[in-house]
């Protein structure tokens, strides 16, 4: 109980710091890959503070409520995860948060954000099966959905039993991190055919909240990556952090190598990967256990 309270507090305080730093490093590495110098690693924090001090401009009165809902439930998702809660509930809360975000775009009644909203929904539909399979995979391996039980399950990391599910999860992380080739609904790159997609109508401190939520979300997602590696040995934590950083680097690499694809390719390829890597892995798990 004490441990879980402390880890939740750590997540609340350090989550955005780590998320912001990751974003800064991301920009730096991306710039170097493209032969640029890139901004300071702390640039995302400067951006965030500036956004918070800008005038509040909205297109309607419910946007801020919906974006707050997004932030609150993302933080709740991460908090529940780091408190060692039920993995399925964690993912359900994540979905709820995502729906709040999509609703904020739908409420704007704007062509660009509506388009972004439909694409975001398509992205959610593409990654949802794999996300649930991750939870099911952990349940099959450790006999529990609870994160704290999964950590203390044994001395063999879960990834040894579910490499396919891990690959599938890395695949959908491209969607979740909003990286090319799957950054259909909104992106950090400047070649967006629909302005900023989902976030077109968000500005000032509301946009800052979105940014903050993404930092929380990214840290949580890397936490799930870590869960594949962590065992009850103390040093497995260090390996987990290394694996997280490595996965994040691979996402940056993917981002810079592949051009954006159309939604139908995203859906088909993601569901195919889910079937081939995820379901086959699950079938084997069901057979050997």
């Amino acid at each position: 109980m004490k441990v879980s309270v402390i880890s939740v507090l750590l997540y609340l305080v350090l989550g955005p710091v780590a998320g912001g730093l990751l974003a800064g490093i991301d920009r730096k590495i991306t710039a170097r890959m493209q032969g640029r110098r890139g901004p300071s690693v702390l640039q995302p924090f400067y951006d965030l503070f500036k956004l918070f001090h800008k005038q509040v401009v909205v297109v309607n009165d419910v946007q801020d409520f919906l974006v707050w809902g997004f932030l609150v439930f993302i933080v709740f998702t991460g908090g529940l995860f780091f408190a060692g809660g039920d993995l399925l509930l964690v993912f359900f809360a994540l979905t709820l948060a995502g729906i709040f975000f999509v609703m904020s775009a739908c409420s704007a009644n704007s062509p660009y954000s509506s388009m972004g909203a439909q694409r975001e929904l398509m992205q959610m539909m593409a990654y949802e099966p794999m996300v649930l399979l991750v939870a099911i995979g952990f349940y099959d391996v450790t006999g529990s959905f609870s994160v704290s039980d999964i950590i203390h399950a044994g001395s063999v990391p879960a990834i040894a039993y579910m490499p396919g599910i891990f690959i599938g999860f890395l695949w959908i992380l491209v969607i979740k991190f909003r990286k090319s080739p799957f950054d259909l609904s909104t992106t950090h790159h400047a070649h967006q055919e629909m302005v900023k997609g989902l976030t077109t109508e968000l500005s000032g401190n509301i946009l800052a909240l979105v940014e903050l939520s993404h930092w929380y979300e990214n840290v949580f997602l890397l936490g799930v990556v870590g869960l594949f590696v962590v065992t009850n040995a103390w040093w497995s934590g260090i390996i987990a952090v290394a694996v997280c950083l490595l996965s994040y680097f691979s996402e940056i690499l993917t981002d810079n190598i592949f051009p954006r694809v159309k939604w139908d390719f995203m859906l088909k390829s993601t569901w195919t990967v889910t079937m081939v890597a995820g379901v086959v892995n699950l079938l084997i798990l069901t057979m050997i256990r």
Partner: protein
Amino acid sequence: MEVIAFLICFPFAAALVLSMMKQHGKPRKYFIFASCIAIVAAVLYFSAGALISGKNTAYLTDARALDTGILVGEFAMMALVIYFGFKFKKHYVSLLSIAQTALIAWVDLSGPETEGSHIVADKLTVIMCLIIGVVGTLICVYAVGYMKDYHAHHTEFRDRRAFFFAMLFVFLGAMFGLVFSSSLTWIYFFWEITSLCSFLLIGYNRTEQAIRNSFQALWMNLLGGLGFAVAIAYCEKQLHVTELEKMVTAAVGKPEFLIPVVLLAFAGLTKSAQMPFSGWLLGAMVAPTPTSALLHSATMVKAGVYLLVRLAPALAGNMAGTMVTTVGGFTFFVTSLLAISQSDGKKVLAYSTISNLGLITACAGVGRHEAVWAGVLLMMFHAVSKSLMFLSVGAVENNTGSRNIEDMHGLVVRLPELAFVMIIGIAGMFLAPFGMLISKWAALKAFVDSKSALLVVFLVFGSASTLFYWTKWLGKLVAMIHNSERLPNTTKGSEWFSLVSQSFIMVALCISFPIVSSGLVEPFLSDMFHDKVPAVISSGNTHIMLMMLCMIMILPLAVRFLTFGKKKKVVMSYMGGVNSGDDRTFVNSFGQKEDMYLANWYMEDYFGEKKLLKPSLVLSSAAIVVLMIIVIGGAVS
């Protein structure tokens, strides 16, 4: 006992009175309200009594006189079907009806008298009674206001409201009869009443389409009825059991019982509109909205899943169970994909009903106690939220003249009250932490435990597409269009009463589900599986879900508080700098004003009926036929 007799007989009596009240106006309206109050009061009295005593009771061991009466009733129904078959030249329904009635009559008249109870009341009966009694009567209350508007809008249809209201009450009576009966013949009798009744209600408008769809519903349900009749004959002649519960208890682990089990399961699949029998429920949309609401939520389809839930222990881990889970899981997945391509609100609801029933069916087929727990809870949540959704779509249609989801764009500004009711309904259908999701959580766990990878695949992909079609509907509702006018809300008092009560029941059910689970569902499971069932959901998780619910409720207030006093600048939405005044029009390349129209994605090429319906009907028919042959062949050899 008296209250049970009242619940079964009173709706029929009320229907008789209503069929004679041809005069529109206050007396009929108040008679309907009073009957509904009487039914709700009786249901509450019965439930309270059953909960306080905590016992399961069986009545009427000797009911020869009533048995004869029921046989006469079955012949009357057969005569009615033959009459309609001749009138509309659809003789195949007559053949189906004659075959099963003859079979039942032969069994009844020839067989040795077997003693057994005819009426039984346990916790599942209480749950079903609450669904039928409360949700069903609320739909009847709604119908009073709705039908008045309906005939004002549709002057082309003959006004047969007296008949309509009578049929609604017959339906309720038949459903009560069905859930209180323990004798297979009695269940079958009420089962046939609901089939016939839905046939009459679907054909209410008497348009060509209505008649075609009503006959589709009739033959599919009669086919299920035939399966039921054969199952009864086999039970009585070969196995010498007449009661459903005794049959199920005896069937566990005995292959010779598989034949009646699989036939009854088949009947359950037809009635709960599983693929390939989904057509009749989709066709039922042609009827006025209260009919759809009644068929989809409180009655008819719930009869099918009710029977499957009762059969659950006998389905665990055998081929009959495999048939039920395969068909149910497949239906859940395919119909949730099909729902994506639909823009007609009622059609989306119809597909979503079939999809959810598929999930309940799959839960029942798994036959483990967590799965059945999930199935029963899904049944309750689905009944309330689906009825709420149908009724609010009906109310929107009466207000705006359209039930297309595209036309609900910006409903939250135009008809805020109805939009809020609808948002509660949609949230209840799929969103965490509302009811359906809790059950989905348990279902997923049970499917994984039962080691059926196929079901897990159906569930995860089906959940993803369910998310897609509900959220895009939700997105339409919350669009805030500038300079929109509020429409005058012409929803009648009775309709409002029904909508608001159901919204409250929805929220109350979400908050109180732990009590419902420990007070009703878990005791029922212990009785049915004859062992002590551990709690399915841990208290920690319950608390987390209640916490999420509280957060959603507090959030609007908290945000209002946080942003209080801050100055917001409201601007137009961005249209590449060519807005012309608001967010409704823009200047096109000819310099002319053009209206903007934002549409949802339907992706007909991928998820359309043209693409998916036929292959999935073929696949599911093949699955049913092959698996039934395997089960029956295996049991005979």
